[in-house]
């Protein structure tokens, strides 16, 4: 009985005392695809921060003489109709994508989870009011709602963020609501309440952490999807005002010249795909590393 008890499976290779951080690192970096995703995201953040130093040309002003140039040593990915360097615009577009992605997901996930948590925990009338409102929001296709809001609010990056936050809110609320309903039935929640824990404490310190792993995955998936949605909005001409650089609008601008210069659309398109993929992979890795129930097994 005095021996440290370890779970039945695996764990034989694990040293007896491992700090939390070491364990987290070991699990997180175990899978190559997660490391790849992390490298992509690090590069992305790096690019966003150092855009002015990395971009070889001015992303907003091009030389009309070099309009629709093929990839060359000067313009590695060619130029668009206005002679603006595609690579430089891609680099600046990183800023837009990340800002919209992180802020939107940040706002929507926190607000959505809180709403879902409250509704699930208290149930009854609270649940009815909150969740029916969410259902009403969900009734609109997400993009249509964002489109509507963005066109009412007008262009500009902050309005895109607001529109996308509201449009994606019900997704988080729904998931969190379901998680809360299942987590709150656990014996340990009853035990915690029997220990004198207040509603707020029970919700934030006991239900929330148990609902976190699925939420983290959801958030990272939505990070990818939100960047896609932002690209969609700017593809449709709503959102980032010209001459601001956004990947979606680059795809849109480029596709008129698809036959002449396909890289104009493909470069931003592939970037969007890569980034969304990287976010999802990192989310998966995070979930495995953060879940204490998987510790010792992985």
């Amino acid at each position, binding site marked *: 009985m005095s021996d440290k008890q370890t779970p039945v499976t695996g764990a034989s290779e694990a040293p007896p005392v491992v700090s939390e951080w070491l364990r987290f690192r070991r699990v997180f970096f175990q899978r190559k695809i997660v490391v790849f995703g992390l490298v992509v995201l690090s590069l992305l953040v790096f690019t966003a921060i150092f855009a002015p130093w990395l971009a070889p040309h001015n992303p907003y002003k091009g030389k009309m003489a070099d309009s629709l140039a093929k990839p060359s040593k000067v313009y590695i990915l060619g130029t668009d109709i206005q002679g603006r360097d595609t690579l430089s615009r891609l680099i600046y577009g990183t800023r837009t994508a990340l800002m919209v992605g992180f802020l939107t997901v940040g706002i929507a996930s926190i607000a959505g989870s809180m709403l879902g948590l409250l509704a699930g925990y208290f149930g009854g009338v609270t649940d009815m009011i909150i969740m029916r409102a969410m259902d009403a929001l969900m009734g609109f296709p997400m993009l249509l709602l964002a489109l509507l809001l963005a066109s009412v609010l007008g262009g500009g990056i902050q309005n895109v963020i607001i529109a996308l936050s509201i449009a994606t809110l019900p997704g988080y609320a729904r998931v969190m609501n379901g998680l809360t309903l299942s987590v709150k039935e656990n*014996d340990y929640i*009853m035990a915690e*309440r*029997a220990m*004198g824990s207040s509603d707020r404490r029970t919700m934030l310190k006991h239900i929330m952490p148990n609902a976190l792993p699925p939420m983290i995955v959801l958030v990272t998936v939505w990070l990818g999807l939100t960047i896609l949605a932002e690209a969609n909005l700017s593809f449709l001409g709503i959102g980032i005002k010209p001459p601001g650089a956004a990947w979606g609008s680059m795809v849109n601008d480029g596709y008129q010249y698809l036959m002449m210069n396909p890289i104009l659309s493909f470069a931003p398109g592939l970037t969007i795909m890569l980034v969304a993929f990287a976010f999802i992979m990192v989310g998966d890795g995070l979930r495995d590393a953060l879940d204490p129930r998987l510790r010792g097994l992985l």
Partner: protein
Amino acid sequence: MSTLLEVKNLATQFKTEGGIVKAVDGVSYHLDEREIIGLVGESGCGKSVSQLSVMQLISSPGRIVGGEIIFEGKNLLEYEANGPEMRSIRGAKIAMIFQEPMTSLNPVLTIGRQLTETLELHLGMDAEAARKRAIELLGMVGIPSGENRINDYPHQFSGGMRQRVMIAMAISCNPKILIADEPTTALDVTTQAQLLELMKDMVDRFQASLIIVTHNLGVVARYAQRIYIMYAGRIVEAGTTKDIFAHPQHPYTMGLLKCIPRLDEEKGRKLVPIEGLPPNLINMKPICAFAPRCSAGSERCSKNPWPPLVHIGNQHYVGCFLNGEEKRSGTSAK
């Protein structure tokens, strides 16, 4: 010794689609200071619900519809279920140990965090003091090298060890009353004995009272001073442990005793189970719910309402026409 907790006519009901379930129907009991009592009955007879009612942890569709719970001179039912007064009693003055050690600890928090949380919450300790106290508590409940194990997660503990942690959590704030809701049901027999012994030690050490809720008369035989027998949401017999075991008066109690083996009996006695199942508590008739299973049942049982608890001797009460009335008319006790 003075009375610490007095429950009077407690009634808790659940509203379901099929009708009203009277899970606890007019239950009264009391607990003295530094006393250990047992609450015994089959599954679904309202033992746990009565204890959760004391803590006001009944959630919808359940509702406490009547009665009084007097603790330290105050009626707990006057407090709002989740209000600050009730919260300062839960865990600090009345603590509870649950049936399932495997699921009663939060899987994503370390043992240490769960122990210190209560200490910080109720005793206002700072993190360092709470940590020290938590290690001390782990030692007290028989978990060696607490300073190493405090950062472990619940899944790294076995069932028995988790129940020890639960006990440590329950006693951490020096409660007056410890309610153990089937504390050993999920454990193997050797661990059961160890944990019961541990609980008794802890209760002695902290000068607390203990309510053991169980379906197993054997569990309480050794530790409880008094025993309450529950059936279908009511207490049908109450008395000192000695009286209950030596002179059971209610047919249900007799049935319970007949179906457990005893060391002090003649050899070759057959164990006799109680026929049938406990009744469905939905829309019950107001007659004795044990009547259909009772070997001594008579016409009187199905015509008259539940027989009230009758005092038949030193702290011995029984709610049955068979023994209660006769005994009462025989003796001049109140």
